[in-house]
């Protein structure tokens, strides 16, 4: 049941070298650099996104994800969900307005998988980059690299995904769109949506808490995915796998790494989900095909290389 959470809002990633990271996210992925702050953090967005930013890079001595944040309809939703999160048993923290430039107050909470999440409702809206609000052209000129259109979702690894998935469904109103079940019916992976997208966030069961598998960015077409693959080769960027298709969500995809080892995905297409849809289920015995639909074999890196 929808609870007033709309969509992924922003993700803050740790990087080992800011200049190299900016080169990856801005010049290769083609995100727009929109701001920097006095902590040295860099703010970026995909060109179709109306809010000011969706990706924040922070230089640190480890890679990985600091937090991912979801945008709600209004401040009233944030207030009521904050109360529900407290009652659910989360450790909840208010982050004041302006801690991220152009963003209102955020409510941060922890989770059984060891990840930090946030909800918020207010962020400066600068509109789609390079387009006017009235009579907009099809796309802006001056885009670079893969021309990624938006931050789409992230896949997170940690222990007790059952707990985090329950939190997202019961408190935040996400639906379970797709899942992987083992022979005993234990859920090993869950793909959750709060929209019509196949996933707004996904979880895979894993012993280490708080791990990031990848941050994903949306492209329009399969041709764009191939072009992204060309750019990965042209720039000698560390590749994981692809271009290929997932069985889960059926998205067309390529995985590669940022210069600090955080995995990036760009993808196109994929299934849609309405609230009355039963979850799509893959069996663990078909896992190779579920993850990589063409190879039908899971590579070791997909399950073990995390930040």
């Amino acid at each position, binding site marked *: 049941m929808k609870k007033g959470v709309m969509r992924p809002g922003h993700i803050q990633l740790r990087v080992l070298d800011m200049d190299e990271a900016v080169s990856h996210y801005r010049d290769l992925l083609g995100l727009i650099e929109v701001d920097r702050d006095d902590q040295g953090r860099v703010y970026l967005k995909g060109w179709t996104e109306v809010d000011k930013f969706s990706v924040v890079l922070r230089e640190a001595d480890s*890679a990985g994800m600091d937090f991912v944040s979801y945008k709600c309809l209004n401040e009233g939703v944030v207030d009521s969900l904050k109360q529900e999160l407290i009652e659910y048993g989360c450790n909840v923290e208010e982050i004041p307005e302006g801690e991220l430039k152009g963003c209102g107050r955020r409510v941060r909470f922890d989770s059984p998988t060891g990840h930090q999440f946030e909800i918020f409702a207010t962020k400066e809206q600068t509109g789609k980059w390079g387009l006017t609000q009235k009579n907009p052209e099809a796309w802006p000129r001056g885009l670079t690299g893969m021309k990624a259109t938006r931050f789409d979702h992230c896949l997170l690894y940690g222990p007790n995904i059952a707990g985090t998935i329950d939190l997202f469904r019961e408190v935040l109103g996400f639906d379970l769109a797709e899942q992987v079940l083992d022979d005993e019916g234990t859920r090993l992976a869950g793909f959750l949506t709060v929209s019509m997208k196949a996933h707004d966030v996904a979880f895979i*069961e894993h012993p280490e808490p708080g791990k990031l598998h990848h941050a994903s960015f949306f492209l329009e077409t399969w041709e764009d995915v191939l072009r992204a693959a060309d750019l990965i080769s042209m720039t000698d960027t560390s590749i994981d796998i692809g271009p290929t298709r997932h069985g889960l969500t059926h998205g067309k995809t390529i995985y590669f790494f940022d210069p600090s*080892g955080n995995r990036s995905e760009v993808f196109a297409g994929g299934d849609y989900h309405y609230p009355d849809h039963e979850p799509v289920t893959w069996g663990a015995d078909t896992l190779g095909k579920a993850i990589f639909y063409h190879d039908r074999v899971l590579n070791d890196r997909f399950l*073990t290389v995390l930040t």
Partner: protein
Amino acid sequence: MKQPINATPYPQDTHRIHILDSEAVFEARADLNLLVAMEKARAQGIGIGCRGGGCGKCRIRVLKGEYDSKRMSRAWVSEADEAEGIVLACRIFPRSELVVESEMLPLAEPYQPRSSSKLQSAAIK
């Protein structure tokens, strides 16, 4: 692996690398990180992960030799580790002949990035 042009002081130099575990021996260019040099030589013995100093999969101990290093994740290599020669192969650049061996990760869990996770076990079964 992308390296800034200025970070290649000895591009013509190559150094012999010995990996004890796999008994692999290969020539590594001084301007490539050790992991990518191993991949280019089609040698094996060090785990291949992100190639960016983040995931810890190529954690090794350098037993002998000189190298320069770039920043690597403190999640996998502490300052004390680094002082002992424990590094991520994707973040070091050989400056002499090196002898290395792979080094298990310091995790409380029995799980190691190189070993099977629950999902993987299910898939294999």
